[in-house]
């Protein structure tokens, strides 16, 4: 960094063309001019660039319009769902959690209304994530980053925090004036109140997060009684801090520098995507008043519709100029559309100078042609196909979800034992999952083995053709099952056997293919 500063130093006195030199270490500035010193001062680009950019504070102005209304509606919807969902009750019978949505880490269960997922159902999570990803791809290729602009938690909470900021500190101009002014009592109490409000909302957010993992009313009571677990306090604190920092301080920096999505969304967008667009062909050359118009008379052009009022820049939550075209920072929220429409109304020009349109149509319009919107194109068809496929697979998997599961593990040592009466005995660890809401009795039977007899180790003596095994509701029963047989012949020391399991209450069945082992050809 020092070497860069040395280059920067000779130009330190002049107005920097790019980044301001402020904030550079003083040592760098006193380094004395070396390479650039001899160059004429007329070259402003000789001012060395800083490799680190100062934060440019964004002061978004409030705005009304169609995009803003939709954004408020989505915000209210998302927040209501987020804060209220843990409180929705769902009767699952006595002794079972009655919270509609509960990610019960302690008991390794995820309850979602009438669905219940076990850790081994993790592939549903994979499916849900694929579904979410493909939906995002499809929506983005159709209508740009509407997720970023409307539904992303970062956007929603930032919007909410900005609302508090605006209520307490006023709109853009007032906030800027106060921030640049000296510290007065008025400024101090407004700042203090704003941060208090932010921390309050952040705490509420962090607290609500916890409620998805533990019973909401219980944890609320325990939290204030001081009897909740350490992890409850820790995670509430963690999410309070992250909400406060990300929505209050980091804001657009998250979208621009931290989030990977803006970086690869460009691969989903194409010239047919329906995105927030400045109609340059109509707006340019920008300018207003007689002087700007006069500047153009020599070229024979007339001023465009854009009066260069910068309203679109002032309302932008990421602080960019939409007139520069599609860019990484644009979250496609459309607040600039609202702002520009207000201005167009005042100047008596037709609205929608900034609008939602495709790049292809804009190009055609600039040439005076009209082009249809093409929603169906290879990209969207592929995404749609993938989405339909993912939805179908998920729906089918959910619809045919088994409430029974059988796992049979053959003992490793001994592989087999010959018992007193000459029969061969194999032992298995049998695990039966009862995913139904009632305790159930299961029958276990064998096929594929001559003179088969079953018993449960350490229980009643004697062998039976079928075993009756009770398993509690919503749990896995583990049994050590002994299988006796007198196989006529064993190929290679083992032969296949099938375990047949049946839930006697629901009639649901499943089969597990295992093996029965014996001495085989060795002196049998």
């Amino acid at each position, binding site marked *: 960094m020092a070497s860069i500063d040395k280059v920067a130093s000779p130009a330190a006195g002049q107005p920097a063309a*790019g980044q301001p030199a402020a904030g550079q270490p003083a040592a760098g500035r006193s380094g004395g001019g070396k390479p650039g010193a001899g160059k004429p001062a007329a070259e402003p*680009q000789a001012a060395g660039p800083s490799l680190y950019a100062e934060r440019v504070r964004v002061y978004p102005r409030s705005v009304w319009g169609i995009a803003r209304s939709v954004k408020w509606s989505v915000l209210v919807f998302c927040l209501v769902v987020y804060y209220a969902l843990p409180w929705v009750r769902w009767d699952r019978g006595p002794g079972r959690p009655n919270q509609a949505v509960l990610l019960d880490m302690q008991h390794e269960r995820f309850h979602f209304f009438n669905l219940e997922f076990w850790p081994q159902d993790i592939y549903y999570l994979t499916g849900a994530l694929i579904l979410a990803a493909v939906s995002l791809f499809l929506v983005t290729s159709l209508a740009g980053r509407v997720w970023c602009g409307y539904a992303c938690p970062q956007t929603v909470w930032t919007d909410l925090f900005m609302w508090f900021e605006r209520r307490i500190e006023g709109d853009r101009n007032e906030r800027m004036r106060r921030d640049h002014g000296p510290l007065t009592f008025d400024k101090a109490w407004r700042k203090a109140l704003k941060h208090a409000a932010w921390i309050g909302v952040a705490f509420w957010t962090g607290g609500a997060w916890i409620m998805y993992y533990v019973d909401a009313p219980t944890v609320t009571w325990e939290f204030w009684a001081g009897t909740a677990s350490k992890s409850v306090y820790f995670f509430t604190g963690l999410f309070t801090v992250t909400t406060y920092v990300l929505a209050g301080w980091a804001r657009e920096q998250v979208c621009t520098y931290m989030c990977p999505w803006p970086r690869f969304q460009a691969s989903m967008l194409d010239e047919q995507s329906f995105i927030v667009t400045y109609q340059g062909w109509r707006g340019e050359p920008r300018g207003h008043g007689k002087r700007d118009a006069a500047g153009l008379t020599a070229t024979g052009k007339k001023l465009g519709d854009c009066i260069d009022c910068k309203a679109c820049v002032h309302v932008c939550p990421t602080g960019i100029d939409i007139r520069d075209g599609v860019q990484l920072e644009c979250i496609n929220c459309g607040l600039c559309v609202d702002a520009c429409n207000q201005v167009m109304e005042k100047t008596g020009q037709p609205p929608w100078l900034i609008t939602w349109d495709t790049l292809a149509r804009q190009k055609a319009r600039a040439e005076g042609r009209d082009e249809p919107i093409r929603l169906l194109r290879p990209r969207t068809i592929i995404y749609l196909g993938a989405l339909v496929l993912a939805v179908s697979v998920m729906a089918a998997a959910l619809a045919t979800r088994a409430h029974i599961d059988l796992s049979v593990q053959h003992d490793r040592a*001994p*592989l087999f*034992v010959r018992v007193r009466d000459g029969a061969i005995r194999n032992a298995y660890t049998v695990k039966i999952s009862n995913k139904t809401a009632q305790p159930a009795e299961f029958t276990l039977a064998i096929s594929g083995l001559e003179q088969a007899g079953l018993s449960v*180790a*350490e229980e009643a003596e004697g062998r039976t053709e079928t075993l009756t095994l009770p398993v509690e509701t919503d749990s896995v029963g583990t049994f050590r099952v002994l299988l006796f047989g007198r196989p006529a012949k064993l190929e290679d020391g083992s032969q296949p056997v099938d375990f047949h399991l049946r839930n006697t209450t629901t009639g649901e069945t499943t089969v597990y293919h295992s093996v029965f082992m014996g001495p085989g050809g060795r002196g049998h």
Partner: protein
Amino acid sequence: MPTKIEKDSVTGRETTGHEWDGLRELNTPLPKWWLYTLYASIVFAIVYSVLYPSVPGITGYFHGVLGYSTRTQVAADVRAMAAQRGVSMDKIKDMPIEQVRENPQLLAVALTAGRITFAENCQACHGAGGEGRPAYPVLADDVWLWGGKLADIQQTITYGIRSGHPDARVSQMPRFGADAILQPAQIQQVADYVMALYGKPVAGADTAAGATVFAENCAACHGDKGQGNREFGAPALASQVHLYGDTRAVVVAQITNPRQGVMPNWNVRLDPATIKSVALYVHSLGGGE
């Protein structure tokens, strides 16, 4: 060293002034806070290095101000675990073994402790999972020399078999051949009879003479039908499972000069609760009575 900082004509942005074979780099500055995050990480690393073990030396290392050590952490964890286990093991010690079996929680503890103790002490002879070895009994089957009830197994493990302990299980099969109690011809006859009991009769052999010899010399211990007697650890002969093998040569050798197994008394090495655990584990292998 940046040489010529200029404005890129395409993007209108400045370059960093670096040039490599004609390639120039646009200046895309990182945000300042990113740099500060790096500084904060460096500060964290310094604080961490002071507090925790960090710098290696020739013969040792800098232990850190807090004196943290994973070794003492593990030792503490092991102590805590031992204390936790001790509660259950104390209960197992004071409880009759049959009652432990009725208590699912204690049984789970005992079976785990028994499995590990078995692997460390018993497996060398009796095999993993009690699968047995030649001349060492299979514990997973339902054939028992001295009894397969919990109390029997506990007794056997505690005092051993022919271990020299006063309470050990002891028996002695006479050396019918070596001590000339039976004539060689009689041994051959009784061997034919035993093979018949095994369910593997020798073709063409007359078992009537053997039966007589058996009734006079063997039935006292092995039972009149060869059913065995656990009082003396006399194995059942009318069985499909045999400790030393089921060929006629083995039978003849056993009658002539019998092999007798020895098992140590484990009370000198294992505490009573652990012995109960092992007994419960052995009982659970599949043959417990």
